[in-house]
Every structure is written in C-alpha cells, then in structure tokens.
C-alpha cells in the first residue's frame, strides 16, 4: 500500500509538471499568435466598456446582432503530413472505439470481434508495470525464485534471465552523464575514447537513411549500410604536392619505401577491412528477412561493443623512436581511423581535418596502425569502363523490358526494397527482379546492373508515353534523368519536366470547407489544367494486415481514409494525412489517383481529370484508383451520401 501511495504521489507530481509545461507552451503560442495578428493587421477583439456611468446618466450603445453561425461538420483530429509515414503493426487494441452508446449496447459482437483481432490484447489491460513495481521494493538483489515466478506468470515479459537483466538495468544507480556500456562515447566530449572506425561511425551508418537523407527516417524501417567499395568516381586521393615545409613528403626516403610497401598489402587490407565490417554491423535486412525491430539492432550492436570494450582503457599510442612523439588523444585517434578510411594515404588532408596534428604525425601514427587500416581501392577489375555503344544497347533492352512489364498480365505491384546480394548479379534470385521492380540507385548492385531503370533522356515535358519514365508510371529520377529538367531549378516551381511533381511537392493550394455532398470537402484555390498534379495523398503506411484490422473499425464508422498503395502496404490518412484526405468520392469525379514509383517509393498522386475551375470541390473515384481498393474504401460512403 505504501508503495502504491508513493507511486500515486509520483504520478501526481509528474502530471502537475506536465500540465505546467503544457500551459507554458500554450501561453507562448498565444503570444506568438497575437504577435502574428499584429503583423497581419487583424484588429484585436473590441472589448466593451461598462455601460453604467458615473452620474446616473443613461448611455446608449449601438446594439449589434451576432448571427447564428452554422456548425461545421464533425472532424476527428489528425496530424498534418506532407510525406508518408510508416508505422508498425499494432499488436494491442489501443482503445475500444466509441460510436455512441447504442452501438456499445447493441453491437457487442463487433467489439468482441475487434478484440479478437488483437488476440484479446487491449491497451492498459493489466500487468503493464508489475515488474517495475516489484523491483522498487527492496535494495537487495532478490532471489532467483522471484524472477522465475514472474517469468512463469508473465511469459510475455521475458525469460528469467531477461528479467534479471532488466532488474539490473532498472535498479542500477546511474551516474549523471554516464552512458550505457554499448554506446560509443561522444567524440567531442571529454570521455572520448580511441575506437575503431566502424565503431565511431556505427550510429551514423546504421541510422542514416540513404533514401530520405535523414537519420532514423519515418518512412524506411530498414536502412542499408554504406557499401564503401563502390565509389562512382575515384577521387584524387593523394595530394601530389607537399602541403608545407613540414610535410611528410619532405621526409627522408624511408617513407617512400614504406609507401611502396603498402600496395602489396592492399588486398589483405581490404579483406580485413571488410571482415570487421560484416561482423560488427547488423546485416542489411532484405525483403525476405523477418520483421527485425530496432531491439535486435541494438543487441547486435551491444555485442559488438562488448567485444570492443574489452580494452576499456584507451590504447596509448606509444610512438617508438620518435623524439617529437605526439600524444594522441582518444578522439584524435578515432578521428584518424575514420578519416584514413576516406582519405587513405592523403595524410595532408587528414591532418588538416584533424586539425591538431601535423601530417607528419599522422603519417607516423599511420605506420603504427598499418595493420588495421583499409587501403585505397584500385579500380575494380570486373567493371570495365563504360562505353557508349554498350550503353545504347542497354537502353534498348530496358525500353523493351518496360514494354514487357506493362504488357504483363500480373496486376500486382510490390513494394520496392533495395537489393543487397554482394558479388551476385541481379538475376532471378534478386528480390527486385522477383518483385518485378527495377533496381534503383539505392540497390547495392552495380550501376551497370541489367535490372536498373535507365531514366529518360527527354527534352520535352515528360508528360506523354514517349517518356519511358512516364510510361513505366515512374516519376523522373533527378539522379538519372539529367536532360528533362528534373534535376534543375530546385528553388523554382518552373521545371520543364512535368513528371516530378510528387517528389517536389508541387501541390496546389487547397481549401477546406463543408462539402456540397457530405461532411467536409476540399476545394481548389486556383484553376488547373487537365492532368495537372494536385496533391499527394499522404498518410500512414501500414501493412495489409493492419489495414484489415483498422478497416473493420473504419467501416463501422462509415468513414475510411484507407488507400491501397501496393501489394504490401496501404496508406491510411485517418490519423496522419494532408488536406486531400477530405476529397469525397464520386462516380463522376474531376480528379483521378495514380500510384507512382517516386525514387524508390510508391506514392499516390491526385491529378486533375479535366480542367477544374476556381473554387471547385475535388472528387475522385475511390474505387478506380486500385482494383482492390474497393475492399477497404467502402461503398457504404456512397450510401451515406445518397
């Protein structure tokens, strides 16, 4: 009971502080709003002064009638988005949907079925915090029996060992600023350690999404790690000229000998470099791999970190025989290892970037470390230099292939996942090929891969079937289509290529108002031409199974924002979306939807079916967009409208 009371007190405290911070935030936002109103010349609300005057004289105030304002249609809150957002399947029912007391009373079977969909798991049911409460009880390490008992009662909370670990983690006294052991210390911080290149870059490599250019992006759950052996163009790695008087190049002949030696080690170095690489990093998930959440990522990471943390004390680099032996800090050493993987033998550049060491010191340090350092790659023998003729042939085959794909009776469109099968060509075993997708620039295969889409070479607007991109229902790729203008004029809206609107977010200004048909509607501000891009249909990307579960509830509400994206995923604009979600269904619509491949992602574009005038309400045929979208976007809506 005492523990409970304590807990209650704590939650109360927590709530109060949350409330206060929230209040603070509201106040700030109100201030901002008022400021904004000032600049926009919206005059503040006129405040009436008291009518009762001083000397009992009657004062007259003009009477103003406030018209009754028609209420607006119901809207459930949603969060604005301009790009799709992938979410995981929900394994527990977050809440029992409320649809009025009648439904709750009469249609109990619906709720029951719903709960069954989630294996009877409803959020906040029971035992969520049990293990935590227990662990608060005593300071002594509890007997193993307790863990066994908990584990047997709540098998879903993990095994006995896991619970023990969890206990340790939760009860351990945390020093302020202390980091979990698996974490690489901050390279800019005072605790920076000397670690391997892979360890220094681990976070950056694993979290960076090469497709979104963001860390831990919202759209792609699996991020491919970089393939350092595929440089498109080998940069001039070594400065030909010494960087100064003290440059290592001015150093006596021994250096040159040392340098001459290195190439012999190259192949070895590369392998070595590769080995820790593949060991330390979690393997890049492929399409076939099971859902692998970030936990497993972390585990892999922690294993790796433990392996490294054996040498807890930073390795002091003893520069033998050097009089001016420089003291290398952990950060400097780590940085050196990072940079040597990028700059190879360009010690001058490395020294410049480290900043605190001269290139000679760098060179000497490199000599010490020579055994573990990756070498500059030679030009890959298996990729002969490109020749024009070959490319032409390539182009022809691609165009044929596009045609073939189009003719293919298969109506299925599968999600694209970058392929990664080192040293194997993209043949029938390649996931891209089996999914009937092109390889994209994100794939780990060679840029000469036969399955790659070559892009277009249009000089026109790419809005006819003359354009291979348009024909393949793809938007032009700014890294492939270099002549059509898709890669130009990033700042302006005047792009000659008309086939890159979704990626550029060149949407039209839409306005929200009560619909002429049902509920809310969306209206266009400026007139548009036929086939012009209007907006992307954005929302949460959920799996087909999740869509099935959610769809049950939506169908009951007679309101669904589900939109089939491809065979694997569905866009759900219920919780997150953009304004086009308010477009109503019509059998005679003025817009149409088209799922396009946009830089590796399927995205839904809404386009004008005919010329649309200022202020017209937008409609599209919910069913037409995808053959089986019908399944989710109910016909019930039509009945509701009628």
């Amino acid at each position, binding site marked *: 009971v005492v523990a409970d009371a304590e807990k209650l007190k704590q939650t109360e405290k927590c709530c109060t502080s949350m409330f206060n911070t929230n209040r603070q935030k509201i106040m700030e936002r109100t201030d901002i709003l008022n400021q904004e109103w000032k600049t926009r010349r919206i005059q503040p609300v006129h405040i009436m002064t008291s009518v009762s005057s001083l000397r009992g004289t009657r004062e007259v105030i003009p009477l103003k009638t406030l018209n009754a304002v028609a209420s607006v249609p119901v809207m459930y809150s949603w969060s*604005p988005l301009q790009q799709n957002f992938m979410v995981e399947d929900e394994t527990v029912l977050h809440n029992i949907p409320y649809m009025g007391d009648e439904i709750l009373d009469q249609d109990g079977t619906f709720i029951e079925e719903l709960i069954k969909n989630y294996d009877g798991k409803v959020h906040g049911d029971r035992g969520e915090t049990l293990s935590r409460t227990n662990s608060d009880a005593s300071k002594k390490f509890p007997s193993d029996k307790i863990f066994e008992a908990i584990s047997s009662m709540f098998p879903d909370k993990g095994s006995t060992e896991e619970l023990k670990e969890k206990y340790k983690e939760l009860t351990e006294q945390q020093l302020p600023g202390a980091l979990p052991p698996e974490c690489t210390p901050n390279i800019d911080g005072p605790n920076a350690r000397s670690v391997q290149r892979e360890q220094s870059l681990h976070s950056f490599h694993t979290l960076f999404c090469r497709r979104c250019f963001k860390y831990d992006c919202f759209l792609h759950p699996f991020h491919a790690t970089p393939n350092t052996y595929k440089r498109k163009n080998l940069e001039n790695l070594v400065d030909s000229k010494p960087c100064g008087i003290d440059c290592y190049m001015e150093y006596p002949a021994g250096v040159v000998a040392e340098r001459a030696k290195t190439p012999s080690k190259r192949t070895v170095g590369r392998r070595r470099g590769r080995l820790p690489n593949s060991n330390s990093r979690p393997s890049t998930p492929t399409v076939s791999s099971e859902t692998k959440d970030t936990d497993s990522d972390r585990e892999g*990471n922690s294993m790796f970190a433990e392996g490294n943390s054996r040498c807890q004390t930073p390795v002091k680099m003893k520069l033998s025989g050097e009089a001016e032996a420089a003291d290398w800090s952990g950060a400097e050493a780590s940085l050196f290892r990072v940079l040597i993987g990028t700059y190879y033998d360009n010690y001058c550049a490395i020294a410049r970037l480290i900043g605190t060491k001269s290139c000679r010191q760098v060179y000497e340090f490199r000599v010490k470390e020579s055994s573990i350092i990756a070498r500059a790659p030679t030009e890959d023998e298996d990729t002969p230099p490109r020749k024009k003729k070959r490319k032409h042939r390539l182009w022809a085959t691609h165009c044929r292939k596009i045609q073939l794909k189009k003719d293919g009776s298969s109506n299925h469109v599968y999600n694209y996942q970058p392929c990664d099968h080192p040293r194997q060509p993209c043949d029938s075993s390649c996931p891209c090929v089996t999914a009937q997708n092109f390889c994209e620039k994100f794939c780990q295969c060679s840029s000469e891969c036969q399955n790659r889409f070559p892009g277009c070479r249009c000089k026109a607007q790419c809005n006819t079937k003359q354009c291979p991109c348009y024909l393949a229902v793809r938007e032009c790729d700014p890294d492939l289509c270099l002549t059509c203008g898709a890669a130009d004029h990033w700042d302006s809206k005047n792009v000659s290529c008309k086939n890159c609107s979704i990626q550029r977010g060149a949407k039209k200004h839409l*306005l929200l108002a009560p619909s002429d048909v049902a509920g809310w509607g969306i209206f266009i501000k400026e007139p548009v031409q036929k086939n012009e891009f209007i907006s992307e249909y954005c929302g949460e990307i959920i799996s087909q199974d999740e869509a099935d579960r959610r769809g049950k509830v939506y169908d009951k509400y007679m309101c669904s924002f589900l939109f089939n994206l491809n065979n694997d995923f569905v866009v759900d604009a219920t919780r997150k979306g953009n304004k086009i979600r308010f477009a109503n269904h019509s059998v005679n619509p003025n817009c149409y939807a088209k799922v396009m491949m946009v830089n590796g992602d399927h995205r839904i574009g809404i386009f004008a079916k005919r010329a649309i005038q200022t202020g017209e309400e937008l409609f599209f045929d919910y069913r037409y967009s995808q053959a089986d979208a019908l399944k989710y976007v109910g016909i019930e809506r039509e009945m509701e409208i009628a």
Partner: protein
Amino acid sequence: SSPPLHGFLGASCKANGAVYPASSAMMNSVKKPKMEQIQADHELFLQAFEKPTQIYRFLRTRNLIAPIFLHRTLTFMSHRNGRSNAKRYGMSDMFLFVTGFFFVALSSHLQLTFTGFFHKDEKPSQNSENEQNSVSLEVLLVKVCHKKRKDVSCPVKQVPTGKKQVPLNPDSNQTKPGSYPSLLVSSNEFEPSNSHMVKSYSLLFRVSRTGRRDTNDVTDTPSRKKRSLSHREEGETTETYVAQMTVFDKNRRLQLLDGEYEVSMQGMEDSPVSKKRATWETILDGKRLPPFETFSQGPTLQFTLRWTGDASGKSTAPVAKPLATRNSDSSSPMETRTSNHRTALMTVKESVSTDIQTRKEQVPCEPRQKLRIFYQFLYNNNTRQQTEARDDLHCPWCTLNCSKLYSLLKHLKLSHSRFIFNYVPHPKGARIDVSINECYDGSYVGNPQDIHSQPGFAFSRNGPVKRTAVTHILVCRPKRTKPSLSEFLESDDGELEQQRTYVSGHNRLYFHSDSCMPLRPQEMEVDSEDERDPEWLREKTATQLDEFTDVNEGEKEVMKLWNLHVMKHGFIADNQMNQAIMLFVENRGAHIIRRNLCRNFLLHLVSMHDFNLVSTATIDPFWPALIIAQGKPGKSIFSEYLVFQQPATHYSAVSA
C-alpha cells in the same frame, strides 16, 4: 378566411374571373362540397406560387431603393433607354418638357367628387336615425418645398382646401349621382409659391368620425383602449383616418389622372405597420390582412377625380385607364367597385414611392400594343392550372414596363428564375405558361464572409481591412442571336442546361484544416497548413532519436540538426547533397561550433561520403576554418561565425 389570390398579377390588377375560383361571388353560389374542393385547389396554388411571388415582390421594392443594375442598360430593354448621346435633351428641351406638363395643370381645376367612405369593420348602420351615416372629410394640399440652406428638412406647407361631409358606407344603388359632395382645388395652388420652390404636391385626406362606444366593451383591444382614452368625449370617440396621394411628384409630373379612385385609409393613431418594416400586408385590428382585403374591409375613401377647364367643364387631362381588365359584370358590391382605380395605401410613405414607380412608366405615353397576355399558372405537377390575364406588358412581379413582348419574356426568364416561363402564341396576344422551377438554386451567392461574419473581427473594424473578392468582372461577348420569340417556346431538350448556375469561384467560407477556424480573407493567399516540417514532426524526429540508448549525445545533436535541415528544405536527390551540406554549414555552422560538435559533424560528413553522397571536395574546403574557430575559445560566437563563413562562401564561388 383564406387569403385571396388577387394581387398575383401586380398591385393594381385583379384576376381574370374566367378560371379563377376564389371570388366571393362564386363562393356564395356554389354548393358546399365543391367549395371545399376549390379551397383545396386554392391551397395547392398558394403552396406553389405564394412564396416565390412574395420574394419577388420584396426584391422589387428593394431594387427600387437600391438598384443592382439599371434595366435600361440591358440589351433586350434598350428601348427603355430613352436617351442616346445623339438626341440628348438640351436645356431648352427640358424646359419645354417641364412647362408642358404645367400647362395641363395650370389650365384646369382639380375637381374631387366623393362617393363615400367605406368601412366594413363596423356594422352597417342599422337604423337611419343614427347620426353616424356620414363622416367629416378634410382635404389638405400638402406642398413639399425644396430645402433651403438653412432648413434642416424639407419645409412642408399644408393648405386646407375644404371640409365636406361624406356618406358612410353608402349603398351605391340608392344614392343619386348628383348628390355627392364635391370639392374644387384651384390650379393656382399648384403654381410655384414665392417663398419656396415647391418640390411636390400631394393631397391629404383626413376623415374624422365620431362613434358611440360602450365603455365596457370587452372586445376592445388594448391599443384601441389606449386610443379611446385619448379621444374620449363622454363615451364618444373620434377616429381619424388619413391618406395621401401625390398630384405632382418631385419631377413635376402629373400623377393623378382623371378617373375614379378608391383610397385605402390609415388609422391615424394606431400605425400597426411600422414604417421601417413596410410590407405589402396591412394589419387590421391586429390581424394581418392581404393587400386587397383592405378594399373589401375598408376603411377606404371613394372619389372621382377630374381636371376641368372650369368648375363644371369637361376634362382636359388624359383619362387614366385601368391597369388591367376586370369583369365588371359581377353583381356583388365588391365587384361593382372593381372598375375603379384602386390604390392601396399601406403606409403613406410606401404608397407614394410605388405610385411614382407605376405612374412614371405610364405617363410618357408610349404607343400601346393591344396585347392581352394570359398567364397560365401550372401547379401540382402541371395537373392544375389557373389563368390570369393582363392587357399590358408590365412584369406582374416587379411591375416593370417591358414595352415589348420579347423584352417581357426575356425579363421574366432572366429575372424570375424561380419560375419557368414558356411562351405559347395566342390569337389575342400571348400565353405564358408559368410553372415552378424545381431546379432553382437559391443558395447564397454573396460574400460568405457576410453570413459568417466572425465575432471579434467583423465588428472591430476601425480601418480598412482586406476582404475576399467574390465579384469578378467578366467580359463576355457572345454571338448574339437575333431576338426571336421562338427562343421562349418550350423546348424538349436542354432544359437542364439552361438552369445551370454560372456562379463559380470562392463563394463559400473556408476553414483552417487544423483548427476548423474560419479562414479570414487576408489568410486566403497563404497555405498555412502546407509545411513540409510541421511542428509535431520536428518534435517527433527529435524524440525518436532521443530514445536510442546506444547513440551518444553528440551524435544525437548533429543528427537532429541535420534531420531538421533536410526536412525544412526537402532534399530529394543525391546530387543536391553537396549543396545541402553547404547550406547546413551556412545556417548551422555557428551553432555547431558553439555546441562543440565539430568532430561529430565531421563524422557525419564522412558517413555521407561513405554513402557516396558527397565528395571529399565538399568536406575539405571549409573544415580548417571550423577547426580554427574551435581552437580559439573565449572568442565571441559572432566573430567565429565570420571566420567560419569565409571559406564556405569561397567554396561556393569556386564551384559556381
């Protein structure tokens, strides 16, 4: 009692009795069950036509006061535009024009012969010894003068012209024509007076009537009691009724032509219809009364007006013709009076204005076509019909004189789209089938801001603020077809197309999609909800990164900064990355130095390089500056930033 249908075709027009069922004469003669049937039919008729007619009546009045457009500017009304630039009246023409009218007036006396004062409300005089068989009538000539500079309002002069005893509710069969009281107004009175230039002349009739009244009259309404209190003279009350008619309007045009008139009088004390809320309905004893009920109930004053050269001479002024034909062969007392002029004076003010309107169109005597227009009202799914006829080309709803049949039809079609009009040629003139337009779109097409005028904003305007433009100037020059009556014939197809509304644009109120608050006009231009990086998403990316336990705080901070940068600018291509980094350094460089994140940033760059997104050429150039700035602690951030900036700009110059 059911409201009669009189008045569907104009204020001064009475229905043609041919098909029209609801006259009192018929009610008396037809058997009961038939009458019920008629009543039901009548209800149907009213159901269909009453509302739109009332709306158009109201709009007519409103358009008189505040016209939206001038009819004479319409192509099909071009004949109403009396002037062209070529034959504009010169000053002298105008003078002649004006004096010409006065010539008529000056050469004559105005003779008024009073037939009687009718007031059905009271029981007719049962016994002849009752002294209440006559009322006293006073006629005043009201001269409204032009305002002089010192005057606040127009000075009004009232010249008494005489008092007469007028019979109360006389039986028209019994009274001999010669015995009616008569008054003469000298034309001298209409001459301009010396002191003031007279703007308009009008006749004011004032009828006072003394009535005996029981002191314990239970049926008295409170208002009547109040009135009787003020006028009580030992159980006797005096009631005063007034009416005013314009003789010459402010344009000096003669308004009263020869003819028989019946004027609806207004009780002096109780003015049940407030002037500001004038409608075409009269209220009698607290009950609402349709306009023509006034004439059956009273109080009305009947008189004959003549302009004579001398006191007993012939009329010199043109005789006003009845506005519409009425059959005068009916024997009911009401019908006997239908051939007379009826001018419903609801309130003095309104009657004057309407009077002007109708007369204006009559006086410049146009060559009148002897056309009879039959309006055939179709209702109850076109299974029932009623017909009314008119002998002129005035629009029955807004009394506009269209002068030509084509113009009339065009006007009806365009201005009264709540109805569907179909023209059918008729030997005597034309038949117009009137039915209800089921497709009429009566939705509001005005400024949506006006209906939703937002409290707190609409009333706090002290200066100019922006509004949404809902009117646009459209220039359209369609190929005009030659005017032909055939275009009004009923067409088999394209009916729907004709009813299409052409209103487009932002004729609605928009709302913010996040708050459901109305969109203010000045917010129209900015799409407030199109942020690529809405606040919640920015917060989300930060918390998502914070959740990692195996990412150190330096890494997290750089990642967050970078993510926000990418989200803000929406980079989509590999070949944008060099530029993206340059921009990042430009915007966030100072922050990175301040927060001591240089090495983490370098790791980020190397990582980007590993992903083959940037070249070493991007990493190299500005880096030393960053290090230099870092190596000088204690220096102001600003100067560091400046040092830092230099290589960056240098680089872009080189790359450009």
